[in-house]
């Protein structure tokens, strides 16, 4: 490599005009468009959380009106789930890296990929419009009849926003499935695919098969409100529980849309920073598919106390326990990989370890909730809130941040400041636990979710939770700061700063538009790490010409 870094063409400097971004079909640029959008939505959702955590500092409702409080947690849920968590890893890191990992020049349908971003933005604008014109107070679940007969807020606009955004998710999933099937480089057999790709393939299946059910459910809700075509209206003999069934048929698998990609990220990070081949490759690969399939069969565990039949409850309880098995298989395999490996405490590794710990906590408390009798006690309490935040924030967001740090040098060509990044990773872990662990206790003691006021005896734990939330808020702002800082002042990364395997590390950083300037790569087995000999090379040293060092 003799090309000068400053002049080498890559996907970022190929063209600077705004139109070249708005009409790009380059999967890497689409990934960056998504990165900017989901970051925007993350901070909107986060701001709502800051407000209601402030309200919950005191037992009395003194900061917000009850209606405002309801709108705040609804806003937080809708934005964080549909506009941050669902698209985060797949649409940002998946779009960017799935084609590169399999040695392709782009996804199978680049124009659909761009279209998905526009659809996403349109859905987001509808939702924001719903918020600024009065908000929604139904909770992110849109349960009927809150959202139909008794709904007096902007349900139609918000549901329409989520409905529209759903199609962007379907297109993303479709692209992943078809790309994985048809665009693999020579030698890239299925069992050589990085586990990140397996995870995204499984996620694609859920996106394609689950999202349309949510779409049609929200469409029926919109029809009921707008045209009076009542499907869920008890006055006509309709059944609001049917809405819950249809809603959770998507929304339980949606949890795996958030978590499976994070698991894929963790597999990449663990192997790289333990300098070890993954333990049980096929088990991890197939457990992703098992999670995707079993995930469709457990939705009824959200309705143990909604008047669902007791026998259905038995079956859903059993299946919900079963779906924990493939997740546990992954955790065991990661642990075995670490055990045999030479571990470096880099930032992505800290996030990956955080993921394993917090996801395990979330998963085990999920078993409490899948147990019929225990669920009757803790249903709709803060125990549930804590449980799914351990999965979705402790799991998915940790995975997302780990992945963003892991691939940041590849995406931008720059290294982030390692010590700042480690500090924020630890701060996030600490702030997260301080925020949500007290909520397990609160829920177990009986504090129900979704109330703006509460009895005095819950105040200490609530103050702890709010204090944790403020730490967490600051800790999330830190990466925003130093990552932007690194774009200008960060050291050059070189092709492969972590000495990672995987085809995405064989191209220059940032990659050129065509991904592989030397032609289509030939794939070998995944994760060919050898243990001790190169462990000291893992953290990048200042290099004058990292390009040469990497080749």
């Amino acid at each position, binding site marked *: 490599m003799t090309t000068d870094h400053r002049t080498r063409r890559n996907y970022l400097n190929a063209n600077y005009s705004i139109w070249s971004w708005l009409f790009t079909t380059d999967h890497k640029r689409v990934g960056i468009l998504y990165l900017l959008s989901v970051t925007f939505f993350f901070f909107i959702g986060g701001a709502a959380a800051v407000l209601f955590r402030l309200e919950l500092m005191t037992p009395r409702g003194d900061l917000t009106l009850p209606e405002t409080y309801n709108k705040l947690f609804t806003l937080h849920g809708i934005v964080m789930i549909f506009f941050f968590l669902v698209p985060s890893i797949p649409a940002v890191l998946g779009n960017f890296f799935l084609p590169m990992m399999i040695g*392709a*020049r*782009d*996804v*199978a*349908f*680049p124009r659909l990929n761009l279209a998905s971003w526009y659809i996403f933005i349109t859905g987001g604008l509808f939702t924001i419009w719903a918020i600024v014109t009065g908000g929604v107070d139904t909770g992110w679940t849109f349960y009927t009849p809150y959202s139909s007969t008794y709904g007096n807020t902007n349900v139609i606009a918000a549901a329409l926003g989520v409905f529209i955004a759903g199609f962007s998710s*379907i297109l993303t999933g*479709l692209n992943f*499935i*078809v*790309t994985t*099937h*048809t*665009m693999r480089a020579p030698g890239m057999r299925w069992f050589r695919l990085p586990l990140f790709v397996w995870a995204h393939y499984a996620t694609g299946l859920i996106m*394609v*098969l*689950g*999202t*349309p*059910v949510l*779409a*049609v*459910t929200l*469409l*029926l809700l919109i*029809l009921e409100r707008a*045209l*009076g*075509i*009542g*499907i869920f209206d008890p006055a*006509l*003999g*309709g*059944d609001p529980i*049917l809405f819950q*069934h*249809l809603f959770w*048929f998507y929304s339980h698998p949606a949890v795996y849309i958030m978590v499976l990609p994070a698991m894929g990220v963790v597999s990449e990070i663990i192997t790289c920073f333990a300098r070890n081949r993954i333990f049980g490759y096929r088990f991890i690969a197939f457990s992703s598919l098992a999670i995707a399939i079993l995930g469709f069969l457990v939705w009824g565990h959200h309705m143990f106390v909604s008047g669902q039949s007791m026998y259905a409850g038995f079956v859903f309880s059993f299946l919900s326990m079963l779906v924990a098995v493939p997740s546990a298989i992954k955790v065991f395999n990661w642990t075995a990989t670490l055990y045999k490996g030479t571990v470096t405490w880099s930032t992505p590794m800290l996030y990956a370890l955080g993921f394993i710990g917090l996801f395990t906590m979330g998963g085990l408390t999920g078993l409490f909730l899948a147990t019929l009798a225990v669920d009757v006690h803790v249903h709709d309490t803060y125990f549930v809130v804590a449980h799914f935040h351990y999965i979705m924030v402790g799991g998915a967001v940790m995975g997302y941040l780990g992945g963003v740090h892991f691939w940041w040098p590849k995406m931008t060509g720059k290294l982030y400041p390692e010590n700042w990044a480690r500090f924020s990773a630890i701060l996030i872990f600490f702030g997260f636990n301080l925020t949500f662990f007290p909520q397990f206790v609160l829920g177990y003691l009986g504090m129900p979710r979704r109330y703006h006021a509460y009895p005095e005896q819950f105040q200490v734990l609530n103050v702890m939770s709010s204090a944790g939330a403020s730490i967490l808020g600051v800790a999330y702002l830190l990466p925003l700061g130093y990552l932007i800082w690194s774009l200008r002042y960060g050291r050059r990364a070189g092709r492969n700063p972590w000495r990672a395997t995987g085809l995405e590390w064989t191209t220059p950083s940032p990659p050129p538009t065509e991904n592989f300037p030397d032609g*289509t790569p030939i794939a070998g087995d995944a994760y060919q790490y050898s243990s001790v000999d190169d462990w000291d090379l893992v953290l990048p040293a200042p290099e004058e010409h990292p390009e040469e060092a990497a080749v």
Partner: protein
Amino acid sequence: MTMSVAHHFDDVEQQKHAATLGMWVFLASEVLFFGGLLAGYAVYRALYPEGFAAGSRHLDLWLGTLNTAVLLTSSLTVALSVEAIYSGNRRRAGYLLAFTIVLGIAFLTVKGFEYAHKYHEHLVPGAHFQFVDHAEGDAPPQGVELFFSCYFALTGLHAVHMVIGIGLFGVLVFELLREKGNAPSPLRIEVAGLYWHFVDVVWVFLFPLLYLIHVAE
């Protein structure tokens, strides 16, 4: 027939594989889209069999049958059009697709008449809904309005899909029958045809579920 290969594909084979698989995956998604609604239909029909039968009796069986015939014929013309383009007969492919569009519009017109009729009979769910069934006496059986909710949601969603299909074919007919310019790639016609067949198959399920459930009694 030559096909152009987009820059990110290696060859025609790969492109064809991707396009066809893409449409099948999309159709799998569509199955779940209609499936959610059909699940609702199934639940309510199990809860209110009399109401659903009574509602079904108010649909026009003859118009429904006519539309079924129209739609099945349109699938045939699409299949023939794909056949024609692969054997290099561009004009014939164009005319066959144009005829498909005519059949699609005929279907929607008949459906429009049915909707108008239901409106006059106060069978559209909502404030104006009023069900009078002489066979059942004056008290309408429970669930009739839900039947019509399902009817309008299912057939309406189906009609939206037909409009999209007609739009896709419109572009293809224009490209096939214009004097200048390249013919569209056969692959596009085939993939659009796949979509049309799917919409047709959905109707094959909707017709008995909506029009024929009272016949067995």
